[in-house]
């Protein structure tokens, strides 16, 4: 073949590639119930408590690129090594984990653990944590074939990233594979570009899109969760007409009726309906989950608050005896430079701050909310218990009680928990998908150190390892007793 012919063939191939390049579409769902392994938290049976519910553990892994992924991995390692010896069996605290919410970098660790469990500790380090993902993405974008594909309006950098994660990190695993693994239920978060609403990769959310999450690649969900604005383009999903038999959940309908009384519940319901396609075609474009919630706690709090939430159901049914939430927060606070310059910040600084400032203020509010919810429940339980002790003393009939007094525990580990001067070094780490191996190793070790030095976590371990029955406690009081 002559040089000219080769060039012609290349141009032709490129033209075909440009014409054909399209991101993979999420699949429509024919009818409600037609999906065999829908990715939802297992349904609760009121009169048949699941022993797995007794100690209910949820983890949240924040965003922050490889820094967050390594920090979350370190937390998993530490939980794996804590023996709680329940019912005479060898069980680690990690075995008790029921749900993991993951954002951006943390989404990779959450999803990988959901798929691989114990094998995570032999493969994730090499397959993700110490790779220079950013370089691989850049090289992939420079590949001539991919350059041609990127010229298509229906294929962008995030689609290349999703392909890389799908093939080399998650090995083409779909949500159907994740569903078969059972607990922990992994909730990967993204943010809807249209209205800033949080988006969760669960079948409950995909129901509103008329779509089957089962066939969706986990790697593509992780890409959506980490599609940092300006650096990467959004992941797009098609919203199909509702599947046959789909009924808007009563929890959503009820929420729409009382906006003034509970605006956050109303907004949540409104945002679910906004996902649905009407007569016209509709697309949902997803950006980094950290834009709506950078620590991933909100989906856990929704499961606690909402009447259709899997935690709320199990608390009211009395199935949960101990509720443990551990937030692994890789938030940084790099030295501030903008305030030291007289000139107005440039466009790049404004873009970056616009994308990250709201992340931080939302994170602090979310942690406050979690702590308030926890103390609210503890207070209500104490009120009933103390009143009934006094009523019993004078022979009066007691007040009705909850089905089960639960012991609650909220632990947050973050670099802020480190003493200075070591803290500043970690707080200055960049958000990137390429960190030196030495830094990755130190982040992994740091998660264990911070857990071990947390007074609340220490109290929790004393209770779990000393109590005769789940939730009985060992005589201590307060958070995590």
């Amino acid at each position, binding site marked *: 073949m002559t040089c000219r012919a080769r060039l012609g063939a290349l141009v032709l191939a490129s033209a075909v590639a440009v014409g054909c390049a399209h991101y993979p579409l999420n699949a429509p769902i024919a009818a409600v119930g037609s999906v065999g392994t829908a990715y939802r938290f297992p349904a609760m049976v009121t009169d048949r408590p699941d022993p797995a519910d007794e100690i209910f553990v949820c983890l949240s892994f924040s965003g922050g690129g490889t820094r967050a992924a390594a920090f979350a991995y370190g937390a998993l390692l530490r939980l794996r090594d804590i023996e709680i010896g329940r019912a005479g069996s060898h069980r680690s605290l990690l075995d008790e984990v029921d749900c993991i919410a993951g954002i951006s970098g943390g989404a990779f660790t959450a999803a990988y653990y959901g798929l691989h469990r114990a094998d995570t500790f032999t493969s994730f380090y090499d397959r993700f944590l110490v790779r220079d993902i950013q370089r691989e993405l850049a090289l992939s974008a420079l590949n001539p074939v991919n350059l041609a594909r990127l010229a298509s309006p229906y294929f962008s950098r995030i689609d290349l990233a999703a392909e890389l994660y799908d093939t080399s990190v998650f090995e083409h695993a779909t949500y159907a594979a994740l569903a078969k693994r059972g607990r922990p239920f992994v909730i990967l978060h993204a943010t809807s570009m249209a209205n800033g609403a949080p988006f969760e990769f669960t079948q409950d959310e995909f129901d509103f899109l008329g779509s089957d999450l089962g066939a969706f690649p986990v790697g593509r969900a992780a890409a959506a969760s980490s599609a940092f604005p300006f650096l990467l383009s959004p992941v797009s999903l098609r919203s199909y007409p509702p599947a046959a038999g789909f009924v808007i959940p009563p929890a959503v309908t009820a929420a729409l009726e*009382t906006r003034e009384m509970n605006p956050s519940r109303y907004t949540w319901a409104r945002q679910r309906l906004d996902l649905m396609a009407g007569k016209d075609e509709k697309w949902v474009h997803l950006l980094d989950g950290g834009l709506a919630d950078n620590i991933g706690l909100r989906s856990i709090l929704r499961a606690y608050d909402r009447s259709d939430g899997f935690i709320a159901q199990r608390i009211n049914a009395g199935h949960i005896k101990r509720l443990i939430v551990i937030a692994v927060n890789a938030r940084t606070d790099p030295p501030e430079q903008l305030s030291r310059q007289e000139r107005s910040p440039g466009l790049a600084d404004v873009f970056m701050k616009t994308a990250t400032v709201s992340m931080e203020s939302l994170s602090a509010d979310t942690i406050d909310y979690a702590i308030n919810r926890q103390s609210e429940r503890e207070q209500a339980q104490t009120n009933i218990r103390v009143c009934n002790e006094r009523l019993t003393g004078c022979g009066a009939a007691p007040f009705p009680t909850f089905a089960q007094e639960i012991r609650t525990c909220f632990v947050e580990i973050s670099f802020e928990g480190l003493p200075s001067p070591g803290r500043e070094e970690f707080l200055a780490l960049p958000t990137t998908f390429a960190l030196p191996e030495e830094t990755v190793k130190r982040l992994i070790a740091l998660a264990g150190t911070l857990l071990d030095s947390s007074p609340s976590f220490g109290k929790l371990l004393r209770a779990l390892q000393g109590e005769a029955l789940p939730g009985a406690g060992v005589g201590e009081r307060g958070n995590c007793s």
Partner: protein
Amino acid sequence: MEYVIVRFPETREVRVDGVPHGRTNIVMQFEPGSHVVTLGPPWNFAPVEQKVLLYNTAALDPYRIEFRILPPAAIPISPGSPL
């Protein structure tokens, strides 16, 4: 959070907004706002469901919802169906 107790002569599953939650005659917690409450089978209770507005309750003063047992002759085949 708001607090609710569903009163019924028997112990029965309670369903709130379409999903199972605990049982009758215990205190349960829900978000403020509107909720639809009913019971699980058998369908020997009335009314079929109740829409409630939860606001300003307390654990020691929960919102009370009453269901009554229907006599056998008045039990529908399924909730809300004609006899």
